[in-house]
């Protein structure tokens, strides 16, 4: 089997939510001399983007994406130690992802983190219920990098905190160091504009597309 065929097979395994198959095909790719970086970039990421597209088209739903994400995790367990030795190559930037303070709805946030990761971002996942203090500290840690802040909120009460986050970033003089995206069910383009953030997206796949554009 050629390298291309193995990489396609890896992508297919991920699209078909085949966790065990994803593991064995990852090992097969490494045995064939494919680098960990290429296995991710040309196999797993391609598969995850297909999953994202199918989700947008209504052909796949959340349970499928979550199973594909588990398949990806299984492959990454094998690839991450190798990747650390090989180096990861260039990335688009650092995406600091989080769920707004007071909100613990993590599923959409996890999907966005995955989709940004497969589209070339280095992910710093702060998790759920994240305070502005933590966000500012994290931006400062990565100051000098190209930074994307990607926050989500599923409730109108937590959405209102996004405004405070932008204000806090402005007050710290960090606004020019970071692009800010917000998403979640109640978040609209008007809201994002009103609070002086940069962009929003309608779902996780769209978020990746918008984020890549934003970082250009």
């Amino acid at each position: 089997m050629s390298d291309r065929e193995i990489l396609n097979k890896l992508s297919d395994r991920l699209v078909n939510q085949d966790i065990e198959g994803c593991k064995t095909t990852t090992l097969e790719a490494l045995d064939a001399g494919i680098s960990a970086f290429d296995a991710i970039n040309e196999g797993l990421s391609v598969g995850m983007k297909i999953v994202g597209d199918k989700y947008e088209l209504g052909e796949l739903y959340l349970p499928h994406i979550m199973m594909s994400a588990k398949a990806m995790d299984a492959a990454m367990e094998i690839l991450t130690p190798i990747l650390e030795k090989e180096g990861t190559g260039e990335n688009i930037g650092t995406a600091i992802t989080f769920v707004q303070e007071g909100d613990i709805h993590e599923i959409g946030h996890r999907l966005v983190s995955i989709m940004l990761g497969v589209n070339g971002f280095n992910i710093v996942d702060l998790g759920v219920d994240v305070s502005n203090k933590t966000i500012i500290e994290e931006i400062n840690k990565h100051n000098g990098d190209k930074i994307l802040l990607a926050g989500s909120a599923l409730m109108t009460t937590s959405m209102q905190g996004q405004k405070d986050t932008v204000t806090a970033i402005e007050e710290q003089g960090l606004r020019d160091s970071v692009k800010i995206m917000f998403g979640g069910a109640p978040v609209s383009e008007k809201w994002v504009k009103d609070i002086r953030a940069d962009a929003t997206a309608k779902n996780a796949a769209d978020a990746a597309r918008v984020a890549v554009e934003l970082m250009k």
Partner: protein
Amino acid sequence: MKTTKNAQYIGIVGVKGGKELMTQRMTSPERMMAVMSGKRPDRVPVIPFALGYSSQVTGVSLGDWYADGDKCFEAQFASMRLHGYEETPMYGYASMGALEFGGEIEYPYGKGQGAPFVKKHPVNTIEDIDKLQVPDFEKELPGAYKQADKLASRCAEMGMPVSVQVGSTFTAASVVANTSEFISWLLMEPDAAHLLLGKVCDMFINAIDYFVDKYGAQKMLPFDGGPSESNTLISAEMFEEFAYPYMKRIHTHLKEAGVNSVLMHPCSDQNKNIPHYVKLRTEMDWSGKYVWLFGPETPVKAQIEAFGDHDVVCGNINPSLFLTESYEDLVEICKENILEGMHSPSGYMLAAGCEFPPHAPPIKLMAMMDAAETYGRYE
């Protein structure tokens, strides 16, 4: 706060002032009664879905509002008097189920929090489902049903409908279990998912029996709905397999108990599930009344086509607009919704498509009322 006899729901028009009496033919209860019995009211009723918002009216914290059924009732009752809308008090939240099955929740006292949320799910593994005990309502009411019952008794005392949460089974199961695990089980362990759904459904059946027995079926306006079965999460086929059978079981039980109206809130985007909601009535051969309150993703026109012949449909203003739009713009948005829905054959009410934002300024709710008064009159 004590409610005086002359401020009772049946006499609420007395606290509205002379001008209102001159311009409005119907009281709020009369208006609701008219719509629910298929008659034409004087104007479209307004059901703003103002739950946590009402905590602003009496000045209690959102945490206390959820933790104490009496405070919850008093705030909602004060808010309905203040604004003059038709919604009567109810108790419930999207994470209901976890506490009742032995998990832990936290009340929303902190910044950004909008409703109780799960701190510890009672189910994290498939083995946990086997051990799960269905709450018994005969000895002591489980979890938040204690608060729901306090509120229900106050409503019943004042002649208002008793609205308690009796669904959705799918959404409740998704919080009884670790949500990510539950979603995975739909594909990987469907039998385990069904076992859990069955037990959650049993809890709601027990709740129906308790409340119908205590307050009477005719006084009930139970609430069924949730976001986890939306098509942003699962397909219509998954809805048919994992949500519909339990919904049908609950509604069949309601029918057999003699309940004749149910408030349905298919939350978020459930457009692909509509055919299943439509067949519910046919398969049960039910002649009762549903009040459909879909998310803002479902056009009013689509609701009328699907349910207008039998049921009341609700206008569904996107809740976040109450935070982003001005009073004037909101009146226009509500006007469009009213004009689209007010001639639906079996009735229409103006509503928010999900909970009215708890921290929205009161003038935004006033926009709904003013739009109903100005553009929603049938005379």
